[in-house]
């Protein structure tokens, strides 16, 4: 064992220790919430610091499902996510196809404009939308919120899928064109199946976006029955603390689990998309 080797081994032990600490630090809020959600009623109020509740129980999870309208919020979130996905994908697939395949005057301009529009924080025009929707009677209705979400995710959908369509070789299309397929048929029968990965990732990201959105959800949905999960959780947490804080933790974990699963599932696509985008520039 040379001196050099010993130094190296010590170095790596320190590095591993640092990373273990970092990971733990990063996970503390989540672990703490998890432990509170499993603790019995007064857990949040006790002064001890522990990540292992003394007698773990699922009572809080049961309570959030049976005592609070959690299932209604869940249903609303599903309606919003699915509705948004259908509308946003429905309109942006054709547009992405058009921007990818046709060269027409105004194409570049529109694409740039879309990016610029997307850079605007939508919250800044929220009041204008609010007033508009109030006049149209769309407040407090799923349709209104779905339109807002679909409109804002549409730009994302167009750009994301255009990028993928661009990578599908034109020859495949030309071959089927010679066989007599029209443009729309081509889109449905040839392009869509080829672009399935892009379509899945885009749809999932739209789902995640809606699932995670709270500001429009809490501003435009004014009655308890129409809250989405975000609105409901928001409500739970503004309410009386103590008991409801451990219930809130349970709800927060229930809401996050599907997102965490999806996130880690599509992570590799996201990262490769992000880094390849960076290298390209």
């Amino acid at each position: 064992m040379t001196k050099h080797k010993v130094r190296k081994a010590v170095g790596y032990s320190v590095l591993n220790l640092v990373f273990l600490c970092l990971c733990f630090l990063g996970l503390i809020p989540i672990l703490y919430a998890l432990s509170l959600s499993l603790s019995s009623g007064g857990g949040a109020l006790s002064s001890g610091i522990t990540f292992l509740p003394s007698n773990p129980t699922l009572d809080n999870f049961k309570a959030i499902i049976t005592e609070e309208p959690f299932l209604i919020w869940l249903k609303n979130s599903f309606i919003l996510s699915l509705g948004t996905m259908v509308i946003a994908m429905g309109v942006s697939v054709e547009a992405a196809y058009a921007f990818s395949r046709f060269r027409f005057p105004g194409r570049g301009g529109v694409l740039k404009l879309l990016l610029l529009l997307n850079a605007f924080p939508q919250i800044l025009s929220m009041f204008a939308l609010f007033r508009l929707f109030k006049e149209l009677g769309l407040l407090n209705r799923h349709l209104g919120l779905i339109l807002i979400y679909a409109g804002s995710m549409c730009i994302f959908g167009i750009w994301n899928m255009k990028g993928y369509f661009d990578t599908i070789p034109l020859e495949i299309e030309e071959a089927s064109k010679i066989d007599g397929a029209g443009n729309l048929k081509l889109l449905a029968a040839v392009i869509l199946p080829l672009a399935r990965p892009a379509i899945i990732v885009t749809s999932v990201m739209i789902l995640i976006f809606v699932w995670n959105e709270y500001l429009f959800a809490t501003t435009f949905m004014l009655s308890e029955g129409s809250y989405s999960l975000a609105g409901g959780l928001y409500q739970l947490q503004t309410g009386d603390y103590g008991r409801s804080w451990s219930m809130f933790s349970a709800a927060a974990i229930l809401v996050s689990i599907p997102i965490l699963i999806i996130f880690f599932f599509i992570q590799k696509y996201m990262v490769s998309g992000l880094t390849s985008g960076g290298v390209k520039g």
Partner: protein
Amino acid sequence: MKGKKKYQPWLYSSPAMILIGIIIVFPILYTGFISLTNMNLFHWLDYRVIGLENFKRALFKVDSGFLKALLTTLLWTAVNMALQLVLSYFIALGLNAPGLKLRRLYKTLLMFPWAMPAYVSILLWRVGMFNTEFGLFNKCLSALGLSKVNFLSENIPAFLSCMILNLWMALPFMIMMIDGALQSIDKCYYESAKLDGAGFWKQNLHITIPFIKPIMAPAVIMTTFTTFKQFDIFYLLTMQKGAYTGATIQTIITYAHQNAFVSNNYGLSSAVSIIIFGIIIALSLFTNRGVKETGEMALRKKGGAYDKA
């Protein structure tokens, strides 16, 4: 046939364009119009056009609070970006140490804060970490025999709290990006550098940083925009509807939101919104080269969720 071809792309994209027109473009134009009126709670219907009064008030009246909010926002962006870059650079370097066997495990664990829905994270921190009664920080303080601190009741501690939370939420993304960039560097540069006797700092300064700079540029620009536009953290941590904590920090975005939805000063709020639009357009043009990629990535990042507010 030729004529039909010409309209086809517009036909295909028209549903999307109409939707974007109604949901994105029209509200922006409408905001522009409201900014020229005295619309507020008392003048909901009988508002009138007052020209550029609101802009004057926002920009030249110091007590309107807008300039202060703008300064806060700039400070917030600068401090956060500096910390984020330095911290994630060193963490990513550590992750890339050749003999680190548990790299994948660490990466996965470090990603968790990024994967959590943002509002859930912020609310968890608000009650789980910063709360005076049940918050973990205060539990630690009282376990050490110190008195409890109300982290969110005054501006400076609240600003720092927001910053810590922002770092917690944003570091994973930066670490991933720098990690990806580091892996694209050819190892032979380091070998020859070592032969030439360059130490750790020299290698970083002359090889690593110049190499990752062009790759990181779009990500950094994008994150700067996101940080600049950060709304959720300030809003959910210190000023939710009916749950003010006492801190009065305003960024330009929370300022616009507050004037629209709390003080019902729609005209002023819209003017501020238009000014922010202007700033963002100017910044976008300024970073023109990066805009395409940046925009593309801003779109991809979490489906824009983190970015949207």
